């Protein structure tokens, strides 16, 4: 601990030991050791490639060589100094998850049959890996836990951020599973009947769905998807254990956390369907049932729509299932409230949301992450139609004031939202304040560029690894926009981001992509990790989407992103950094020992 005096070191380690209920000697011993590079697997060591055809069009996956960090100079406009590697200091190291899309695949309030109407339009309504989302999430949490020490500097992880779309279909159960899995609480991802899968993947009428027991004759069998007997039973009956995140984690709204299928409004009939005892296997019956919800008013149009539905007599496309009140759909504030039903560690209770958020209904927040960084968690969802987002004027003004304050405070600012610059284009009126102006990508980026303290905008939504440079008009500063892939679609990757001070007037943001911890090649294993591995393989064979594209380019994955430091970083002493890292290292010790 070169930066801390002996007295400060002893005081710090004693205080941290007391905070976490750890042995003072053990903490002192650990903190006295120099940082060593994280040795756990990331895509620096190994990647996963799409492999050869196994059957008809169906491909398996293979392990492939790792990818080193590539320096990107788009914002600096010049090469970084050659000495930076020897002198750099870690300022913060964080995990970034997004688009986990936890799914209660047995819920009646799913739109799976709509893919029979048009697979391109409704691709997100049914995926063959729908029952395996909790297994992937647990596998990804394990992966984040595995990289709790930086592969670049050895710095400990400080926090993790989840940029929305944690639930898939606005379900209480899905949101519950999300909080529990990130907290390390075991779950059994089932609903309805105990110990039995009830849903489209065992119904012969659903010819458009993947039937893992025997896909012969369904769309996926035609494509070459394999028979996996026992998959569904294993998926819904086995307990899913999660390592839990080793650091405090923070969440923001995604469109799937606020609208149905991330796109549609929720009519009352759909709420009833969610907790009811019938589930659709025909798209027309389901579509008309949905419409009926909208036609439940007494207007002339509504009555006519109701007549159409009744006369068409298309309610036969449903089967009976076991109802479950736990499947109820979220109201707008329920997503925030779920973040308060959490374990005390890793915390924080509310995960970014505070009592003030609950009291006021405001759905965005800010939080200091260690002594050098301020995080801003936005809600770019409009609670209305359409998958894309926008920033309401009120939130925009709040963020701008916050960025100005961060700059004045000498803190680096990182902005977290669900939507990215390609998708911040929703013009639908804000449900809670229809007259409020909505800010879209160009204006939002221009505002961020006014504040050099803002070094990163971190987001998701498109399920594609993407890193874009945004440079100030005078080229004196800029920020990096970092978008991660998802847990639901191939390649099922997330990432870590580390901010380091190069001590030459520049910072580097190291982005490191993580595959989830399950093996690249599925061996037939139906354990949690086996099912996660199978999910990744199934997702790589999505013929409607473009799975390989979602990997992004090499300039979107493992990168060193250079940017001008917004202030003189000499004001940050080594002692300050080491004290901050001591706190994070001790928290990780507590995690490794099972939290106090």
């Amino acid at each position, binding site marked *: 601990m070169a930066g801390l005096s002996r007295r400060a070191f002893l005081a710090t380690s004693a205080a941290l030991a007391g905070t976490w209920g750890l042995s003072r000697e053990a903490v002192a011993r650990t903190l006295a050791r120099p940082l060593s590079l994280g040795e756990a697997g990331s895509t620096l060591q190994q990647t996963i490639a*799409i492999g050869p055809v196994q059957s008809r069009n169906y491909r398996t996956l293979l392990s492939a060589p790792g990818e080193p960090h590539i320096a990107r100079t788009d914002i600096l406009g010049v090469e970084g100094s050659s000495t930076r590697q020897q002198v750099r200091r870690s300022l913060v190291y964080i995990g970034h998850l997004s688009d986990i899309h936890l799914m209660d695949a047995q819920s009646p309030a799913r739109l799976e049959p709509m893919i029979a109407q048009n697979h391109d339009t409704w691709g997100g309504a049914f995926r063959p890996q729908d029952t395996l989302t909790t297994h992937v999430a647990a596998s990804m949490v394990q992966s984040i836990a595995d990289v709790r020490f930086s592969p670049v500097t050895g710095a400990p992880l400080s926090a993790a951020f989840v940029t929305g779309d944690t639930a898939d279909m606005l379900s209480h159960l899905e949101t519950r599973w999300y909080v529990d899995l990130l907290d390390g609480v075991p779950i059994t991802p089932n609903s309805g009947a105990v110990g039995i899968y009830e849903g489209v993947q065992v119904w012969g009428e659903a010819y458009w769905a993947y039937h893992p027991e025997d896909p012969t004759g369904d769309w996926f069998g035609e494509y070459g998807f394999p028979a996996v007997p026992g998959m569904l039973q294993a998926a819904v009956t086995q307990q899913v254990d999660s390592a839990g995140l080793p650091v405090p984690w923070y969440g923001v709204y995604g469109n799937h956390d606020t609208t149905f299928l991330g796109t549609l409004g929720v009519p009352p009939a759909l709420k009833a369907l969610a907790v009811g005892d019938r589930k659709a296997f025909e798209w027309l019956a389901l579509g008309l049932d949905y419409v009926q919800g909208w036609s439940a008013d007494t207007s002339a149009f509504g009555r006519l729509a109701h007549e159409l539905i009744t006369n068409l007599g298309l309610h036969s496309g449903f089967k009976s299932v076991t109802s479950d009140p736990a499947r109820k759909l979220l109201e707008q504030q329920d997503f925030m409230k779920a973040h308060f039903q959490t374990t005390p560690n890793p915390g924080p209770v509310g995960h970014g949301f505070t009592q003030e958020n609950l009291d006021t209904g405001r759905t965005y927040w800010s939080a200091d992450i260690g002594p050098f960084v301020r995080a801003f968690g936005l809600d770019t969802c409009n609670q209305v139609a359409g998958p894309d987002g926008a920033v309401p004027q009120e939130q925009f003004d709040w963020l701008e004031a916050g960025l100005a304050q961060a700059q004045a405070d000498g803190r680096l600012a990182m902005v977290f939202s669900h939507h990215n610059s390609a998708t911040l284009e929703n013009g639908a009126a804000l449900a809670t304040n229809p007259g409020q102006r909505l800010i879209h990508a160009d204006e939002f980026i221009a505002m961020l560029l006014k504040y050099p303290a803002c070094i990163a905008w971190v987001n998701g939504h498109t399920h594609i690894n993407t890193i874009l*440079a945004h440079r100030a008009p005078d080229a004196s500063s800029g920020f990096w926009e970092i978008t991660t892939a998802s847990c639901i679609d191939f390649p099922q990757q997330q990432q870590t981001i580390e901010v380091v001070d190069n001590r030459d007037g520049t910072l580097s943001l190291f982005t490191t992509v993580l595959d989830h911890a399950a093996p690249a090649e599925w061996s037939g294993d139906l354990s949690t990790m086996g099912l996660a591995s199978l999910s990744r393989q199934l997702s790589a064979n999505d013929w409607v989407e473009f799975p390989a594209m979602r990997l992004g380019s090499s300039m979107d994955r493992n990168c060193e992103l250079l940017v001008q430091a917004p202030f003189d970083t000499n004001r940050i002493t080594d002692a300050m950094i080491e004290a901050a890292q001591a706190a994070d290292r001790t928290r990780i010790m507590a995690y490794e020992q099972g939290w106090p």
Partner: protein
Amino acid sequence: MRRSVLAAPLLAALALAGCASQISALAPVSGGDITALRIAAIDVLEQQGVEMMLVPACVTEGEGYACSGTTFDGKPIEVTSPGTDPLGMTVTVDGAVVFDGSVKDVIDKAAQVTE
């Protein structure tokens, strides 16, 4: 990035129920083609050993797309695509064509797809 026409009865019912906003809600997530173009262009440049100071950034241009960047030694990188389906692109460095072909083929190859 395609959107189908809903079958007539459902479309009629949707319209009659006054939920045009719900139909428009089926619009896909923005940005797929332009994102694919950018990825493929970078893949091509990487494969050809072109070191990039400014990685190509892409914009919509009429029906198609255009991207521009620079090499480490200051040469311009230009990428154009007519936006047709299937998506094609032409990549030039300092005015010389270094690639002319399919976006999808480039991306599939970069994912190390083995035939």
